[in-house]
């Protein structure tokens, strides 16, 4: 009995953090319609700044706590003014989701540079000795967490429901245009909601730090669970987000205490999928859901990226020649290895491009399919002696089946919910790869994976592997290019931009979305298998959710919807840390920053930008004026 109470108390404390983050989600969502995935990272920023002030510089606890909260909020306001507020009116909400994922990555990059990758724990505010109540030991920090959380929730409630400022915030949530016409400064309210969410996240991060171990990337964990909490409770409901957080904390701790932490993760994510499917507005959800279609209409197309006719052929042949010649220049070592990895990741990003760039479906779970492909092929090869080729095909089959099963959830969802269902899927796979120690080797990974081989041909050396990957990439790009320039590609783009008009022309929207999803799953899986065979080793973090975010950065930076464009994004983010070693530390920051900057100022990506400029330069201004004269 005491154990149960002990676990429930642990769950309540855990749930308190989830509740505050969920509240932040709900606040920003209600004002802007955006799910701010960077939310959880501010908990960690607050806690690590607190660590520096309190432990490293010896400031007294209350001063350090206040200073850390304020410093984090100031940092949050700066980020909000630079990126978040200007982006909200410019980007469709599902692009905003990716942008905030970029902010999350960016924050983790900053933390990695500032505090490196080691776990931190703060000393409790008032002593180590726990209070014993009727045989139940409660850490003193528990009272602090409970008290702070209650104060935070009550003051937020008062602010939003009982003040003029709160009314203005809620007006933005109801109707941004009307709010602006009524003289409400909508950008300022957007910033305010963002800053308030950062503030409460920082406070709760500081409060919980003494009983949790925090690392630069723990923010992802907070974001995930805060989001699951708010999705269960209902994004539009104040009470719902708090209740969802507490419920999730207790459920998670009970499951972890009585079964296993693997089960707890699976339970949380399973719960999320069930709620998304059954009641997308959450258990406490009320009010009309915002219109959150696929990334349609609002997104402005700056140019159609295409290298025409002979130019395209010259470009393709040139690229192929360079690709074939590269191993002659770099005969081995780090650079050749990075080139192989570039090729392997590009296969997965190609799939993501079909899904996101063409069909306009956001997936935050692409690495999940890499994991399925990698582990299936590796386990079959190591434990059952199945040949790598068959293992790879088995992985692809399993991935396609998983994607198909997942599509029962995703195809019924739109916008946000779709992206988040894929995120939940990715996280579920993460927890499986870590948790199923007997099969996957758990966190320490799976070693002794053979080299890739087809029959008697073995691709053991990096050069062999390089040419194998180049061959696969060439075949894939040609095949996808053939499909994308045909009716299939046009139908996908039509679905992306205007589902109603596409349907009115007889396009089967569901079938095309599903096809794109299955293609992306198959390519992700192929990439994951090759990855495992190349390294002869596979561990969960090689194919975990941060990899999904990384691949989105690569795609967006290179250029969506062009197939070849993303190669440059993949190459940039893979090669730079190899060529310029000190850059490795800044890689996470660069990924986040690149994603955010490209989304805001270079929406067609590096390749798109270059291709458009180049084709304008190659084709003199003959075409445009002629067109203008055409219509009388």
């Amino acid at each position, binding site marked *: 009995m005491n154990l149960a109470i002990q676990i429930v108390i642990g769950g309540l404390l855990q749930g308190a953090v989830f509740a505050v983050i969920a509240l932040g989600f709900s606040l920003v969502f209600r004002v802007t319609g955006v799910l701010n995935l960077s939310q959880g990272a501010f908990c960690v920023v607050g806690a690590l700044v607190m660590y520096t002030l309190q432990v490293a510089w010896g400031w007294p606890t209350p001063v350090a706590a206040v200073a850390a909260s304020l410093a984090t909020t100031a940092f949050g306001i700066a980020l909000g003014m630079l990126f978040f507020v200007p982006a909200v009116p410019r980007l469709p909400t599902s692009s905003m989701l990716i942008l905030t994922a970029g902010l999350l990555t960016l924050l983790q990059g900053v933390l990695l540079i500032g505090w490196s990758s080691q776990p931190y724990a703060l000393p409790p505010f008032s002593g180590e000795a726990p209070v014993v109540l009727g045989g139940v030991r409660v850490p003193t920090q528990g009272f602090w967490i409970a008290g702070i959380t209650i104060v935070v929730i009550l003051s937020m409630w008062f602010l939003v429901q009982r003040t003029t400022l709160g009314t203005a915030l809620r007006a933005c949530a109801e109707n941004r245009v009307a709010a602006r016409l009524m003289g409400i400064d909508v950008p300022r309210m957007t910033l305010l909601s963002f800053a308030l969410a950062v503030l409460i996240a920082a406070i709760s991060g500081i409060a919980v730090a003494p009983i949790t171990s925090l690392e630069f990337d723990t923010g992802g964990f907070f974001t995930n669970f805060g989001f699951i909490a708010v999705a269960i409770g209902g994004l539009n409901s104040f009470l719902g987000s708090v209740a969802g957080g507490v419920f999730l904390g207790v459920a998670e701790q009970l499951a972890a205490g009585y079964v296993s932490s693997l089960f707890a993760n699976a339970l949380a994510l399973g719960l999320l999928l069930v709620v998304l499917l059954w009641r997308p507005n959450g258990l406490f959800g009320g009010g009309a859901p915002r219109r959150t279609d696929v990334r349609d209409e609002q997104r402005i197309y700056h140019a159609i990226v295409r290298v025409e006719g002979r130019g395209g052929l010259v470009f393709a042949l040139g690229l192929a020649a360079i690709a074939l010649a590269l191993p002659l220049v770099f005969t081995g070592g780090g650079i050749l290895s990075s080139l192989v990895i570039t090729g392997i990741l590009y296969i997965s990003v190609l799939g993501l491009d079909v899904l996101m760039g063409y069909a306009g479906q956001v997936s935050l779970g692409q690495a999940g399919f890499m994991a399925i492909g990698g582990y299936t092929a590796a386990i079959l090869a190591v434990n059952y002696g199945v040949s790598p080729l068959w293992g790879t095909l088995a992985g692809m089959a399993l991935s396609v089946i998983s994607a198909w099963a997942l599509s029962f959830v995703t195809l019924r969802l739109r916008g946000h919910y779709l992206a988040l269902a894929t995120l939940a899927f990715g996280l579920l796979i993460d927890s499986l790869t870590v948790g199923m120690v007997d099969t996957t080797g758990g966190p320490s990974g799976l070693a002794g994976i053979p080299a890739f081989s087809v029959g008697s041909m073995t691709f053991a050396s990096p050069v062999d592997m390089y040419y194998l990957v180049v061959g696969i990439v060439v075949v894939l790009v040609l095949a996808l290019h053939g*499909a994308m320039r045909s*009716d299939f590609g046009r*139908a996908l783009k039509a679905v992306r931009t205007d589902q109603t*008009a596409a349907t*009115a*022309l*007889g396009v089967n929207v569901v079938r095309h979305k599903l*096809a794109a999803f299955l293609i992306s799953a198959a390519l992700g899986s192929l990439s994951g298998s090759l990855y495992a065979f190349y390294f002869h080793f596979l561990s969960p973090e090689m194919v975990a959710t941060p990899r999904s975010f990384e691949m989105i950065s690569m795609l967006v930076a290179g250029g969506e919807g062009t197939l070849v464009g993303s190669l440059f994004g993949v190459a940039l983010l893979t090669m730079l840390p190899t060529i310029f070693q000190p850059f490795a530390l800044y890689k996470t920051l660069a990924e986040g920053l690149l994603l955010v900057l490209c989304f805001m100022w270079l929406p067609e990506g590096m390749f798109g930008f270059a291709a458009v400029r180049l084709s304008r330069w190659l084709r003199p201004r003959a075409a445009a004026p002629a067109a203008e004269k*055409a*219509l009388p």
Partner: protein
Amino acid sequence: MSDAALAIAGLSKSFGGVMAISDVSLSVPSGSLTAVIGPNGAGKTTLFNLVTNLYPADRGEILFQGRSIRGRSPGAIARLGLVRTFQSARIFPGMTAQENALAGAHMHLQAPAWKHMLWLKSARREERVLAAKADALLELVGLKPFRDMAATDLPMGAQKLLEVVRALMAEPRLLLLDEPAAGLNDAETAELAELLRAVRDSGVTVIVVEHNMSLVMGVADQVIVLDAGSIVAAGSPRQIQQDKRVIAAYVGAEA
């Protein structure tokens, strides 16, 4: 009824107590060009949305070539050969004008994606044939020079014409056009009238919602006047021009 391309009986739809369409019955003969006119808010676009099932109808029956289509999905209705355009030109951004036109031919392109992945000659040939057809239609409406431009860069009038071309590429049996002349100048409107006659003469039944009276009176075989969700009058353009109720409801003070 068998020679009616579209027959509607007792169709009704209300939005929160407001009758947008109330007890509308009409019949559109095959191969005719029917114009639906009426003041703003009369329910013209709603009528189209009910026929194509963008909104479900509350009551009534909709027969397309003698077959009930009420409750069928918009995609299924399109596949039967009933294709529409939208009031605000909903061309696809991120595609050229030609690609937009070709997107209209989606239902008629048989080659599956895997044939294109293998770059099979037969699949390419099919695309080329339809591209030639798209080019011919673009030429016909004077959009040829815009062929390879981003469709969203086209002037509004050209976008509206492009949407009509896209619908024609779907080879409809019944074509619903929602205010195709809105945003077109006089010369463009004349071209559109020419195009509509040609389409009708090729055997396609056309229903057009339109404000532009000279277009309506010039090309329509039959005019249906809607006001406040009900049919006020129906007949030949000449009959309608002389109908007192129509003058009261629609032409109003201008007459």
